[in-house]
């Protein structure tokens, strides 16, 4: 029986199968080596990129954690004098300033940016392409220019520094970031869902609100939180326009303070107590930014899981 089979001409399919399997098993050693080298390289890069992050965090914690207390977070600052050089006040004014400025800016920017994102994701037109280009450019704009813009158009017109001018600058900072994220998230929603909505007799806007945005929500939330994280830490856009205030003030039409601004001012001070305060604020800021960016990943992952 076997003799008969041996005498037959080799089956080309079997022959090809043999060659493929042999080549594959020869290559597997090479591939395993390659993948080990690559993992090594990736691991090294990861460690290298973690070094600055970890060392900054370590320094911040070492220098800043000592000043942080409930009073530090809520009280207004004390101006050190020659007699009372070591008085560390609080940063309540800057906390409130950041909260008001970034909060109101987010309230304006989020709905606006989501609307623009919807428009960009759903329309193919010259106008849409133009707006997309503008958004792209705005994202890359040096943020100090937003400050200059707010200075010229708000501060000079109203003849006053104000939280309001900072809100305008921060809004312009946030809108393009959220718009980009929103467009991407909305484009990721399967087209069949829009068709299903429209086929039920819904208006386009109802489908967007009732179907598309909820499905895109994880991506939208990530975009919003990341843009907030960026806004909270930005000094440049508000530096020129917010003025300065040592008192807690909720009125955005007055001059205000803000966390990144306080770091900038306190760190330039000759008093050790002020410098220590700057470390404290820096720690608060980094924690806020970390919470926002890690939070955004957590929330998004959770919502994606729920949708399934």
């Amino acid at each position, binding site marked *: 029986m076997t003799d008969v089979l041996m005498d037959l001409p080799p089956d080309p399919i079997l022959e090809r199968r043999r060659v493929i399997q042999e080549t594959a098993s020869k290559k597997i050693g090479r591939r395993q080596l390659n993948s080990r080298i690559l993992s090594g390289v990736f691991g090294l890069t990861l460690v290298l990129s973690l070094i600055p992050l970890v060392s900054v965090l370590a320094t911040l914690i070492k220098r800043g954690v000592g000043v942080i207390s409930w009073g530090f977070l809520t009280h207004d600052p004390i101006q050190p004098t020659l007699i009372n050089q070591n008085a560390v006040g609080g940063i309540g004014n800057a906390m409130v300033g950041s909260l008001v400025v970034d909060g109101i800016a987010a309230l304006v920017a989020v709905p606006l940016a989501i609307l623009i994102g919807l428009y960009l994701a759903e329309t193919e037109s010259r106008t849409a392409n133009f707006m997309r280009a503008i958004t792209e450019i705005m994202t890359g704009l040096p943020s100090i220019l937003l400050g200059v813009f707010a200075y010229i158009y708000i501060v000079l017109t109203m003849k006053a520094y104000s939280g309001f001018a900072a809100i305008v600058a921060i809004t312009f900072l946030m809108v393009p970031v959220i718009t980009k994220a929103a467009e991407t998230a909305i484009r990721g929603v399967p087209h069949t869902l829009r068709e299903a*909505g429209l*086929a039920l007799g819904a208006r386009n806007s109802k489908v967007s609100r009732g179907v598309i945005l909820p*499905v895109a929500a994880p991506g939208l939330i990530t975009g919003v939180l990341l843009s907030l994280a960026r806004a909270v830490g930005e000094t440049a856009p508000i530096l020129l326009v917010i003025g300065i205030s040592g008192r807690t003030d909720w009125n955005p039409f007055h001059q205000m303070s803000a966390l990144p601004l306080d770091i900038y001012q306190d760190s330039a001070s000759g008093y050790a107590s002020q410098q220590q305060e700057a470390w404290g604020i820096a720690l608060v800021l980094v924690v806020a930014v970390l919470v926002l960016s890690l939070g955004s990943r957590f929330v998004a992952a959770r919502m994606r899981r729920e949708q399934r």
Partner: protein
Amino acid sequence: MSMTQDELNPTRDTEPITNGQSAVSTLTPPAMRLENVSVSFNGRTAVRDCTFNVASNRVTSLIGPSGSGKTTLLRSLNRLHDLTRSAKVEGKIMLGDIDIYGGSLPPTLLRSRIGMVFQRPNPFPTMSIYDNVVSGLRFNGIKKKALLDEAAESALISAALWDSVSSRLKAHGSTLSGGEQQRLCIARALAVEPEILLMDEPTSSLDPISTQRIEELMVELKNRVTIIIVTHNMQQAARVSDDCAFLLMGEDRAGELIEFGPTTKIFNDPSDPRTLDYIQGRFG
């Protein structure tokens, strides 16, 4: 086109309808009339010159090989091509005595009267089973809880889904099996109480048992809606439809209507040899 005047005549028979296989039209006027309907994309014709009547409370099937324009024709009936910029629909499509492209009926109102079930189940993923079913009503502005509840129950019963989901209406639609999801989509379409239901290969992604349930459903639903179904499955067309339209690509690869008539005639005694070839599986 091999259609006699008699077949286009809406009032040709007086026999009362007793079952799904009766192959003749009713006394009632046709639910929809298509006159020389053509659809093109970027100037390239996808389907052309379709003329036939869709009888009320009957199932009309559209059959033909892949690319013959069945989906394209179906989507022109609820103006879904409006979303595609490159698409152009010509000819006349009448819903009762309204020209649906005539401008008197807004597309949203048209679509609430002509429901659609898609090839792949597409429940809204963020919504519960209940919210999915009543979504069409909510989109159309209905808020009254009692009405929504009533409509949801009735639609789920009609879609043969009530027994298995009535205890978990709050669960996500995506927790259902593929076949159940498709029946959920049928319930969602039915809840708006459409006069006409368009179905584009509704069972092509389903197993034989789910397919059978949906086929039975179509026959049961006839007293409630007029159904137009696209299918690749010859047996399915023969089993569920009363009338049948056969489309085929012409010389220039544009689909055209080869033959339209009662399903029994198309399957047993077609007038066009090309229909016979296709039915017998000689090409396609």
